[in-house]
């Protein structure tokens, strides 16, 4: 099941009354949406508030969401509009160039985010990154290769299976075991 397909299923579950499914959608996209909102407001606390508001708006509008576009594209527009409305209310101009509110893939979010990172965020992220790298270094070779090909190279399970010359089921198992091992070592940092 692709990410978009799983999003569609999650949306349908929310529309049938499953709040846990919406929680999953929030978990999946909260970082992307906060990073997006940070393009409009410099204050991280305010960005969190706007992101929260955007998700609540989306939840309330979700019963009318027909699925013509991907959930994230729809969510992206809601977040941009919420941020713009906030700025309009505060009579302030956006701090950066206008983003295309129709296309979430038109800009390099990660690269732009670096400009507005706070020292606190950088410290925390560096700490987490170092912990994860240490955990990966301690993994057996097959697990380490599998998780790196997946997370850093963005390969599909099928592609990893071909690269590592093993069945897809083995790839699935190796990636899970890698994550589980890493999670046990860095658990306190991700909670």
């Amino acid at each position: 099941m692709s990410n978009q397909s799983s999003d569609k299923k999650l949306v349908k579950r929310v529309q049938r009354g499953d709040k846990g499914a919406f929680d999953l959608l929030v978990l999946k996209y909260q970082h992307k949406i906060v990073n997006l909102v940070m393009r409009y407001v410099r204050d991280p606390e305010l960005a969190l508030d706007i992101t929260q508001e955007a998700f609540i708006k989306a939840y309330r509008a979700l019963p009318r969401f027909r699925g013509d576009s991907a959930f994230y594209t729809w969510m992206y527009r809601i977040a941009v509009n919420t941020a713009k409305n906030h700025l309009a209310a505060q009579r302030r101009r956006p701090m950066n160039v206008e983003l295309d509110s129709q296309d979430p893939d038109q800009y390099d979010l990660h690269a732009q985010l670096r400009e507005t990172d706070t020292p606190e965020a950088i410290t925390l992220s560096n700490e987490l990154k170092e912990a994860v790298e240490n955990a990966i270094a301690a993994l057996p070779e097959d697990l380490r290769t599998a998780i790196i090909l997946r997370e850093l190279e963005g390969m599909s399970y099928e592609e990893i299976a071909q690269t590592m010359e093993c069945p897809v089921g083995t790839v699935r198992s190796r990636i899970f075991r890698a994550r589980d091992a890493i999670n046990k070592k860095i658990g306190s940092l991700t909670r």
Partner: protein
Amino acid sequence: MQISAFVDGELPDNEADLLLRRMGQDAELRHRVAEYLAIGRALRGEISVPGVDRIHERVSAEIDDKPLEDLIATAGSPPTSAIRPLAGAAVAATVALLAIFGLQQTTSVDESDAKTLAGSVAATDAGYTVPQPLDEQLRQYYMSHGATATEFGANGINSRFVSLRMSEETLQDPADDEETAPAEDTEEQPTQP
């Protein structure tokens, strides 16, 4: 292992359906998703705003206050302000329809009742026997009783009327009555029961 594959979008549909159902009810499973996503971001060196991981909790707390059934019930509906005038018209139309159907039902009931009544009357008429002339003693009894009843006012007007008529006239055979009664007196004659 399923959650890991789900995070990567690699879980087969049949397994994903079941997992989504479980995750919808199990916050711990959802937390595991969050952890796996965090590992990926950390590996890629993505920097997050502090507190972003709490957004889903804040959103959950907000939407928990509002029953989702309410939101679903309003799905696809126009805003409340737009509904109000329509709601008034709908109520008026409903009342009008109820009145029409109610009237039709009453009419049909009346008609059927009338038919039933007519049938029963006809049946009664068919079985009706023309009373024979009372003998003098019995007639006197009725006259006395009618006068007493009138005096005590049991059935006021009716009693008076019957008493008056019986005291003024002698009961006649209906056949004779039809033949002898003058046309102008017809209205004043008591009707047969």
